[in-house]
């Protein structure tokens, strides 16, 4: 997949003059990380450094803004050169940005990673950061180094040290087994959080990805539960037998907004993440659902059919000042507010197709990102530049795709099985 993406970037670059929408791609050099260690320790650290280098390159290649040069072991440099790189060499290679760094083994068995990002043209340092990680945890250090480089170039948070939760699906039709799964965004550390005996839906990660709110049919009807990612401990969101669904954590993790049925009426409620008495936020007859918080937690965007068709609305997080955001034809649903506050991603159903789109938080600048016809459930990456979503194909298989808001082709996410309802966490530290 990375290869084909690399090719598509190259093709885009070739077609650049014809396209006004062409995003600027920054070429990044990532020569192999070095080490101050000597002897056999030095060899070991260099080995880890080389693996980390390749991971950083893979991370940066997965973005639409950065294009890393293929790493080459011949570009080895000494430890003092980490902070004094030969800029002329990288300028000649066409790189605008340079990432250097080192791996140092510590007496306690852990590793120190140093990571430095430079503007090659100006010969100036853009950012530096050190990380201490467990010996087997070099991947996280590499991801954080990738994040440092991405942020230095784009100003947006990197999405490399993040998690993705989704519903893993196996089997077909009535026999379909659904399990809540979670993995690091690079595909590593894939785990199932539920065993598959009950239908489960819509996992929603807490801000630091330590908990997942989801819907389960364990009681026979859809109800929201919270599961702790590390311990696997579960509890119901409410001590009630009402149908509850569409849970979403507030950005500080303290509250959960969700839908609850009261008679034929689906309304939005809010409750403390650790329990309490739910407060009702909407009262319109009909379907109000899919709440999503603004990044400062003060507002909630949601879907309502109070006007006759489903449209997006925004309200204060206490339910006051409800106003309509979208006025297009067809139906709007499953909104998700971007982490930088600028955009709201949504599903729009129109002319027989479901597509993913975005609209500015003030209701202007609506644009469609995908062609459908079976797309739904967009969820933002921490960078606010990509969304993941579910695509149902002609054979009714659910797959997870990722698309960038600059309008590049959606790419399929590599996961072990079919998947639905993806949810992408914020940066974990």
């Amino acid at each position, binding site marked *: 997949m990375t290869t084909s993406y690399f090719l598509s970037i190259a093709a885009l670059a070739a077609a650049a003059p014809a396209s006004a929408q062409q995003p600027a791609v920054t070429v990044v050099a990532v020569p192999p990380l070095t080490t101050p260690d000597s002897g056999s320790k030095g060899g070991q650290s260099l080995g880890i450094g080389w693996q980390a280098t390749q991971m950083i390159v893979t991370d940066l290649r997965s973005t639409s803004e950065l294009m890393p040069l293929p790493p080459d072991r011949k570009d080895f440099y000494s430890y003092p050169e980490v902070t004094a790189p030969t800029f002329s060499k990288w300028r000649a290679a066409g790189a605008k940005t340079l990432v250097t760094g080192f791996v140092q083994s510590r007496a306690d068995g852990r590793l120190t990673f140093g990571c430095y990002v430079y503007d090659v043209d100006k010969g100036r340092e853009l950012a530096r950061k050190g990380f201490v990680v467990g010996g087997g945890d070099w991947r996280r250090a590499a991801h954080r180094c990738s994040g440092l480089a991405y942020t230095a170039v784009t100003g947006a948070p990197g999405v490399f040290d993040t998690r993705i939760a989704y519903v893993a699906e196996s089997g077909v*039709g*009535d026999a379909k087994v659904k399990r809540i799964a979670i993995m690091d965004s690079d595909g590593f550390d894939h785990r199932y959080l539920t065993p598959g005996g009950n*239908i489960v*839906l*819509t996992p929603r990660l807490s801000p630091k990805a330590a908990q997942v709110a989801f*819907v389960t049919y364990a009681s*026979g*009807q*859809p109800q929201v539960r919270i599961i702790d990612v590390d311990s696997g401990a579960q509890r119901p969101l409410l001590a009630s037998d009402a*149908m509850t*669904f*569409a849970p979403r954590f507030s950005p500080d993790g303290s509250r959960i907004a969700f*839908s609850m*049925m009261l*008679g*034929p*009426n*689906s309304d939005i409620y809010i409750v403390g993440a650790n329990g309490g008495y739910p407060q009702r936020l909407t009262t319109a007859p009909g*379907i109000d*659902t*899919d709440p999503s918080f603004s990044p400062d937690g003060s507002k909630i965007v949601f*879907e309502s059919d109070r006007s006759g068709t*489903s449209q997006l609305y925004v309200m204060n997080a206490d339910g006051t000042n409800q106003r309509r955001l979208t006025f297009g034809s067809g139906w709007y*649903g*499953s909104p998700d507010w971007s982490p930088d506050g600028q955009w709201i991603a949504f*599903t729009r*159903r129109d002319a027989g197709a*479901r597509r993913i789109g975005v609209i500015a938080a003030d209701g202007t600048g609506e644009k469609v990102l995908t062609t459908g016809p079976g797309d*739904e*459930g967009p969820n933002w990456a921490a960078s606010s530049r990509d969304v993941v979503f579910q695509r149902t194909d002609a054979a009714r298989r659910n797959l997870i795709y990722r698309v960038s808001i600059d309008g590049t082709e959606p790419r399929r996410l590599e996961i072990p099985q079919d998947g*639905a*309802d993806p949810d992408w966490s914020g940066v974990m530290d």
Partner: protein
Amino acid sequence: MRKALLLLTMLAFTTAAEAQLPGLRRRAPPPAQPVLTGIDAARADFVMKSGADTVYFGQNSALLALPAKATLAAQAQWLLQHPEIVVRIEGHGDAGDTRDHALAMGARRAEEVRSYLVLLGVPAMQLAVTSWGKERPGAGRAVTILVR
């Protein structure tokens, strides 16, 4: 269905075991045709007498059309005659809906059916509702399922 099979299997085992034991009085042979008993018999009778266990809705609508109301009237009559029976009304959303919209729509359809049955005099205690959203095949409908 599964329960009925289990019963039949148990019955087969018991008779076989008894036949092998000498000195025990032989029972009458089991009936040749499996006879539906308990909830399965009630389900079959319910569907036969009320015409259908399922009512259908228009796309993105929870309004009960005339044919649906006729079916529900027959269901209500049967339920009034069987006050010991408890049913679960399962609503389904539309496949074209988004996940949560389908859940809400399924719940709304199930609730419309429940309200109509209550309107026709069926005690609310006999009626539970749930929604399958778009998780099960057979969009745009609500099914009345006998639970016990």
